[in-house]
């Protein structure tokens, strides 16, 4: 079923009776070439690229709940490639390029909106750091512009420029960054993978991983045993539990990250604005809600909801940056379970078990990585060598100390990112 403007018009005129489910609901087979554990954004995009780029369609995606019900439905939908360090730079650049062609590739409207991501700075030192980061972005082939105070004012006149503690000095503008519709990304990849023969199996919880002589043989699930030649763990905040089924202890601690949305308002915030000094960032959804968030609650948690101290901190930061937001009313809040790695950067790698692959450690940056992570993990699974854009996302970098990607410069230890 191809989407087109003509098709929408025709269905609209004929009572929308021609639409069909976008993917099948198959029973699990007893045997697949590849099993992907986790039907979130990363798992679905991995399956899609396995089928599309590598011709591997005897693939099952196993999801314990419903697809898109995890972090791909619990984020703030921001897409960007404004990283500083080798490893992250080329990976997120690769991912952003995939985002830019995603709707045409999937024939699905993911509402990709390159409305620009603006990072604000409030001191000479921070401005210097932004200049360095902008150069790193340009060297990577992505876009970056340094704005002075007046440049920021032209773009976002509603901010408090003369706040006593955090006067606005300027900003780093990444025009190709923006937002996308989170659910549509999951659905678009699911539809694309399904149409190429991938089985998407929901309500199927993996309860064990079968390993013989150091080689993965398949998985045990709530819907029976499934044999597989290769298995990929793509389960974000639950990575430690699933990896434990394979006898692994991961360098991951799961934390809670909260986000908030207001009631729908008329268009008021055109870009994504980040106020790093207040751990605050905001954009406006196409539906009108102001979508914003802050920092981690900063304790290990699987609750998928946070506590009030961080909610209060986020609201304070919002009022500091843009006092007009005080008139908006918060509609709801939620939390995602973040798979925090020691250096704050992700992992796409093999494991010590032959045929078992790992995708985790996305911290609070997994959404923008959805196309890139799937593309690179599919390459690793299919060809058994890393994609050039992801070859530095190694699991062993903590053990060896080589290639750590500590963007914040706080140290490659837990609880610092």
């Amino acid at each position, binding site marked *: 079923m191809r989407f087109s403007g003509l098709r929408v018009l025709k269905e609209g005129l004929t009572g929308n009776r021609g639409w069909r489910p976008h993917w099948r609901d198959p029973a699990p087979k007893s045997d697949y070439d590849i099993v992907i554990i986790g039907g979130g954004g990363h798992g679905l995009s991995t399956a899609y690229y396995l089928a599309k780029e590598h011709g591997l369609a005897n693939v099952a995606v196993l999801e314990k709940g419903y697809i898109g019900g995890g972090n791909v439905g619990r984020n703030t939908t921001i897409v960007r490639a404004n990283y500083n360090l080798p490893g992250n730079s080329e990976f997120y650049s690769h991912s952003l390029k995939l985002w830019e062609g995603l709707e045409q590739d999937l024939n699905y409207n993911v509402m990709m909106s390159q409305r620009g991501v603006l990072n604000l700075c409030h001191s000479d030192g921070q401005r210097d750091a932004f200049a360095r980061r902008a150069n790193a972005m340009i060297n990577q082939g992505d876009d970056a512009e340094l704005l002075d105070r007046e440049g920021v004012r032209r773009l976002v006149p509603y901010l408090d420029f003369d706040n006593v503690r955090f006067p606005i000095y300027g900003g780093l503008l990444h025009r190709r960054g923006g937002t996308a519709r989170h659910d549509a990304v999951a659905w678009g990849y699911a539809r694309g993978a399904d149409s190429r023969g991938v089985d998407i199996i929901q309500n199927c919880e993996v309860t064990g991983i079968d390993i013989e002589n150091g080689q993965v043989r398949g998985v045990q699930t709530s819907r029976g045993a499934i044999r597989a030649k290769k298995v990929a763990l793509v389960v974000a905040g639950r990575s*430690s*539990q699933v990896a434990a089924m394979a006898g692994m*202890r991961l360098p*991951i*601690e799961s934390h809670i990250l909260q986000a908030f949305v207001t009631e729908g308002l008329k268009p008021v915030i055109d870009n994504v604005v980040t106020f790093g000094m207040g751990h605050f960032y905001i954009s406006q959804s196409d539906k009108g809600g102001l979508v914003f968030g802050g920092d981690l609650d900063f304790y*290990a948690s699987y609750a998928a909801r946070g*506590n009030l*101290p961080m909610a209060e901190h986020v609201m304070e930061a919002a009022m500091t940056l843009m006092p007009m937001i005080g008139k908006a009313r918060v509609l709801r809040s939620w939390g995602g379970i973040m798979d925090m790695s020691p250096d704050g950067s992700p992992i796409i790698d093999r494991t010590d078990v032959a045929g078992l692959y790992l995708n985790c450690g996305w911290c609070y940056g997994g959404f923008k990585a959805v196309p890139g992570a799937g593309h690179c993990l599919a390459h690793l699974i299919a060809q058994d060598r890393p994609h050039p854009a992801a070859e530095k996302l190694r699991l062993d970098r*903590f053990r060896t100390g080589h290639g750590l990607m500590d963007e914040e410069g706080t140290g490659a230890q837990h609880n610092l990112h």
Partner: protein
Amino acid sequence: MRIPCPICGNRDSREFDYMGHALTLDRPAPDAGLGAWDDYLHNRENPAGPTRDLWFHGLGCGAWLVVSRDTVTHEVFGAELARDVTGGRA
């Protein structure tokens, strides 16, 4: 969350800094080898459910606590002084 500090009583979690899983109290010997130190520094059980972690009462008495709590429900079961847990070592 409120944390029952053995010295100060039940206090708001905002008075505390979370300092990671309590396994960090069990420091390997200096010559334990790369594998042991890698595991100690980086790898975590990361339990979904009951856990024991370290909290520093920075805006209170300055004690380090081992807090027993649940990572899924945020329920706090209890807390003890880290020095009592380690028996004075480390």
